[in-house]
């Protein structure tokens, strides 16, 4: 989800690049089309092509470096196509269903990947997973489809939390809250000091509101119910879902009213400038933060509401899957094994600017206090969720955007909003 936005933010700057990428992709496709009929690719020795949506300058450079290293190792050859993320998102089904698709793709783990797997579009990568036996079970489960085979190789993940500036919390004389009651008390204190306590950015990035829904739901009803709801096995007009909004309503008066009109990047600026107290967001927001502010940032986990509910956190996982129709499965798997290795993951984390945790448990993450704290929080969690769209589908996300922005505007109409949401979701599930 986070990747939508770096792409959009840099969209204009990268139009040219995206265009080149598209040209590259099409020339590759035609090259593949012509060579597929020849004898060269039938023995599986052609270059493996990676279609990448990591279009922010640092991430793109990091990927380029990884591919360069892989090519130098002599285990195969690979070439990288970087596509603007929004284009990538809308084109992905087309890539996968075309007659001669690119071999490997950057994408998200979870239900989005499983959905493609259920249509037999993804390559079985169980062989790669044989050498990944030290990966945690949670990541293995996440990468396994309904038929029990692995179809995804994780690269890294990140976390969501309430971010704030340490210097501001010290200035206002407030502490990190642990429980929902403490959280509301903190909001009240900040409000009395004239600071809008909770920042949000829904203008242009309405999906940010889904983090609130996800967290309240996994704190009140637990992660299994949340996943079932997002898979269409529970109803949005269920009283259990309404309970989520009853809680949310307690916090609504503390939201920054300007947040409806800002995108999340501006909400980040507002937080850093001390115009809001805290901001529930994923670590990718730091891409938009000036370097000198990074050291002053800290976060706390979404407050506990019901201690009886097993602790779950949002930890969206990024990685790779491959097309079932690849002409070179051996080369593709070799590249995946390389990307899942310690060396590649450490190199990627070092080169990319984002605050991310490598998926390989033996790979060292950055040792900044923020990353150490984030890693500890995820390790403590009994369950990990991905994010609204990743646990359901990109198709369901707009129904959530509509329902949640409307709720924030008109909390009185919650019953009607949930009925509409259920109706909208049913249409999406029906197809």
């Amino acid at each position: 989800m986070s990747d939508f936005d770096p792409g959009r933010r840099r969209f204009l700057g990268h139009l040219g690049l995206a265009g080149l990428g598209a040209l590259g992709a099409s020339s590759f496709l035609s090259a593949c089309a012509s060579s597929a009929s020849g004898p060269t690719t039938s023995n599986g020795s052609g270059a493996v092509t990676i279609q990448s949506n990591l279009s922010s300058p640092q991430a793109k450079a990091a990927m380029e470096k990884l591919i360069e290293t892989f090519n130098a190792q002599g285990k195969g050859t690979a070439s990288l196509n970087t596509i603007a993320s929004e284009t990538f998102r809308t084109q992905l089904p087309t890539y996968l269903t075309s007659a001669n698709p690119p071999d490997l793709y950057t994408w998200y783990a979870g239900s989005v990947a499983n959905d493609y797997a259920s249509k037999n579009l993804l390559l079985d990568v169980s062989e790669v997973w044989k050498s990944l036996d030290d990966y945690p079970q949670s990541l293995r489960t996440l990468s396994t489809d309904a038929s029990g085979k692995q179809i995804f190789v994780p690269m890294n993940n990140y976390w969501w939390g309430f971010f704030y500036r340490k210097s501001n919390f010290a200035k206002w004389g407030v502490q990190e809250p642990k429980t929902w009651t403490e959280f509301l008390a903190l909001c009240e204190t900040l409000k009395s000091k004239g600071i809008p306590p909770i920042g949000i950015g829904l203008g242009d990035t309405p999906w940010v509101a889904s983090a609130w829904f996800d967290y309240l739901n996994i704190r009140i009803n637990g992660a299994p119910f949340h996943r079932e709801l997002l898979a269409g096995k529970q109803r949005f007009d269920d009283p259990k879902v309404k309970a989520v909004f009853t809680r949310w309503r307690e916090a609504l008066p503390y939201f920054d009213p300007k947040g409806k009109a800002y995108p999340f990047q501006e909400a980040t600026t507002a937080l850093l400038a001390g115009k809001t107290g805290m901001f529930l967001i994923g670590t990718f927001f730091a891409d938009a933060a000036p370097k000198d502010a990074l050291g002053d940032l800290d976060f706390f986990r979404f407050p506990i509401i019901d201690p009886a509910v097993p602790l779950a956190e949002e930890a969206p996982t990024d990685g790779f899957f491959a097309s079932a129709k690849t002409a070179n499965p051996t080369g593709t798997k070799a590249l995946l094994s390389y990307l899942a290795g310690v060396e590649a993951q450490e190199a990627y984390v070092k080169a990319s600017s984002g605050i991310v945790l490598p998926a390989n448990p033996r790979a060292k993450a950055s040792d900044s206090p923020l990353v150490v704290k984030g890693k500890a929080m995820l390790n403590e969690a009994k369950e990990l969720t991905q994010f609204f769209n990743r646990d359901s589908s990109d198709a369901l996300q707009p129904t959530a955007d509509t329902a949640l922005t409307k709720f924030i505007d008109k909390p009185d109409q919650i019953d009607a909003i949930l009925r509409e949401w259920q109706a909208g979701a049913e249409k999406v599930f029906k197809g």
Partner: protein
Amino acid sequence: MTATISTTSVTPTRRRRRSARLSPLLVAFVLVPFAVESVWVFWPAIQGFWFSLTRWDGMTPPTFVGADNYVELAGDATFRGALVNTVIWLVLFGGLSVLGGFGMALVLQKERRWVGFYRAALFTPVVFSLVVTALVWRVFYQPDGIADTLLRAVGLEQLIRPWLADPQTALYAVILPALWRQIGYVMVLFLAGLKAIDPALHEAARMDGANAWQRLRHVTIPQLKGVNAVVLSVIVIDSLRSFDIVWSLTKGGPYHSSELLSTYMYSTAFQSLRLGYASAIAVVIFVLALAVILGYLVRAFREEAS
């Protein structure tokens, strides 16, 4: 039509000779564009009609569902909202850009000092890409942005609201930048029409004692009939395909309050991946455009005949 038929029946030999002399170059000029159009325009359009009768996610093959999509459209509140918004858009965007464009053309038709500058200034927004226009207007509308500062400066701060995020104002806040651009375009069309009017007509009217209003009403406007048809088609088509400015400013939100048929079609197709349903919306847009333009053309022809 009748004339041609009678000539052919009277002098079949001469007619045949004429058609035999049809230049191959001319045939090529007609057939080549027709072939290209068939592949790139007609065929996809016909396919669109077919897809509107199917359920299709873009990955698995489409399944035929008959009129199901159209039945669903009839009961879809979001679609109804988008339809109403599209009508509002057609009336406000279309109406005001005709009035504004015509007014500007009248004011700027006479060659005076600086008139070239004003014309260029009004036309400049047309040159910008709508996505760039949207970026500029977003800065204008943002909280504590130019719009809010202006209102505060004149003491109207109670009017300040999140312009693009308030369902009451979002649609109108998007129409304004669209108009800002369209007026310049319509002005140029009308300017061309005004230039083509024979000055002798105005002079004769003036000699007969017609005042400025009478000359406008009885000379200028009737003389612009040809341009009107072009302007109407342009306005209707531009209204129904308005998409980029809405998508870049609000994406049809908040909660569908600035949704147009075009944005609803796009989000249904490429976000919800319901391509069959989106095709049904596209068919409705097509029928609407055709109905408005055909309605005008039929009336225009009838007037000409009588």
